[in-house]
């Protein structure tokens, strides 16, 4: 199938252009540094020299881990946008698309191929970084977050959401413009999510609704919150999280996204990919 050929081509391009190598080297350096940090964190004591209770240490490790994963999530989103933004537009602008689209290939196969290839790269990156980071954290602090698989799934879904949006914009605008628009929307959605949580704390229906709308329009922040949930110690969620005052903290989540919301996120991706197919189909090259 042509879509699988184009998916393999996308992955091959990332490898040939040394994107995978660069990401692998930088990720290993970051994981090494965070491993060193977690090692020190596990040996710290109170000012009087007494041991820090295990539960508090676990809480500290989980919070630092959330920050580390936040960094990985940011790198993932930026990388997904940078790689996806020229995926279609640059091939049309340069003329590479001309000879390919003249072949017996449907445009939906082109979109599907790019999407599958980029999606596979995202899943590979998330699986590799999450696995390595959690192994290092466990080795240095003995902490294992409650939902490592859920964490990887939420992060992958977040990356796929922003990649899908970028691919859609890339069918109509230049790679540079598509990238900038996607990043602005990504950060708007992040701020929207925080604003919604603050609205919840202070009982402001308007702000809370604005946050909900932003999460419906672009599900990246809500999915990020799902990954935070999977990182938090169960005790922390149950005891400390029982108060709404903490809801405004972008690095604390009281509950995971609902099944209905996850269904919407899946529909959102299908809708965006369908729009991408339609947009490329209507585009004259």
């Amino acid at each position: 199938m042509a879509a699988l050929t184009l998916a393999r081509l996308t992955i091959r391009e990332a490898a040939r252009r040394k994107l995978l190598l660069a990401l692998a080297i930088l990720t290993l350096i970051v994981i090494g540094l965070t491993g060193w940090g977690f090692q020190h964190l596990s040996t710290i004591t109170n000012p009087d020299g007494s041991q820090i209770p295990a539960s508090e240490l676990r809480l500290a490790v989980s919070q630092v881990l959330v920050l580390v994963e936040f960094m990985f999530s940011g790198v993932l989103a930026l990388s997904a946008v940078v790689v996806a933004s020229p995926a279609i537009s640059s091939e049309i602008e340069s003329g590479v698309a001309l000879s390919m689209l003249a072949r017996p290939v449907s445009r939906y196969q082109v979109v599907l191929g790019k999407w599958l290839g980029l999606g596979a790269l995202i899943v590979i990156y998330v699986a590799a970084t999450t696995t390595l980071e959690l192994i290092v954290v466990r080795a240095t602090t003995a902490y294992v977050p409650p939902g490592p698989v859920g964490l990887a799934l939420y992060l992958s879904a977040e990356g796929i959401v922003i990649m899908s949006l970028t691919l859609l914009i890339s069918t109509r605008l230049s790679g540079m413009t598509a990238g900038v628009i996607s990043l602005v929307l990504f950060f708007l959605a992040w701020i929207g999510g925080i604003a919604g949580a603050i609205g919840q704390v202070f009982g402001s229906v308007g702000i809370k609704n604005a946050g909900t709308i932003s999460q419906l329009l672009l599900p990246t922040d809500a999915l990020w919150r799902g990954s935070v949930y999977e990182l938090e110690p169960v005790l922390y969620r149950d005891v400390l999280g029982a108060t709404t005052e903490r809801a405004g903290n972008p690095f604390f989540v009281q509950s995971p996204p609902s099944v209905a919301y996850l269904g919407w996120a899946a529909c959102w991706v299908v809708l965006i990919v369908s729009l991408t197919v339609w947009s490329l189909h209507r585009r004259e090259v």
Partner: protein
Amino acid sequence: MTPDGTAAPPSADAAAVRTLELTKHYGASVALSGLTMVVPRGEVFGFLGPNGSGKTTAVKLLLGLSRPTGGEAWVLGRPAGDRQTRSRVGYLPELFRYQGWLSAAEVLGLHCRLAGVARSEWPGQISGALSTVGLTDHADAKVETFSKGMQQRLGLGVALLGNPELVILDEPTSALDPVGRADTRTIIRHLRERGCAVFLNSHLLGEVEQICDRAAVVADGHVLAIGRLDELLGRGGVRLRLTGLTDVGRAALARRGTLAEHDGWFVVDGVDAGAVPDLVADVVASGARVYAVEPVRQTLEERFLSLIEAEQARWQR
């Protein structure tokens, strides 16, 4: 203007390309207006016109890369853009660019796969294409290291994959040196020998004159003339350098065609090649002395320029 371009219905007939009033507008701008033509299979067809005349637009419409705003087109008996038909069509775009991070052989392999060539045929197709376009020694070199000429050769190789029944070449020699141009002409002749139609988009008239069976001249989106090359170029003539031309001799020349004098030559337009010996015999019999006899034929470039000038004059009126 359209010798056989009447409103025939589409069918699985012999035509490689058939268009009927094919039109493309971009807003108020007319890129192509009412193109009606037939390109039979196995023929090399030249599509001529100045820059911006609508040549590339026509090609994109035939390949389904662009949608017409009017008229219809069929390629190999199927509506233009039909997905399955595209597996029988080779295409070298004017803007030829291929994945720079792939090797030449890998680009050809990719297009074998996209064109639906059976996997068992890939090695033969790839090595055959590389050999035909003279890139065998560069099979494993990255395309990004190629010169523009080499990239255009690669594009020609890509267009030859899968034994197409129609090859569309959009300015195929724009980046080639004289050797590359000669090689391209040889490739086009080989395609014709094996029954493949070639649609050659070009403004290099000498090239078209050497290899095309028929041609169309377009300007500003309109077809100005279409037909066999000898029809387009007219019957030609003959010029003579002679002395002692009497009134009888002059009348003998004028009887065969339109007589004119240029730079000491007597030029007779509209003379068939077969009538030249009799014409010379008549002139000699009239007492004139003949020093030279040369055929005169309007070049495609002269014909092309006269058509374009006539079109411009028509618009100015």
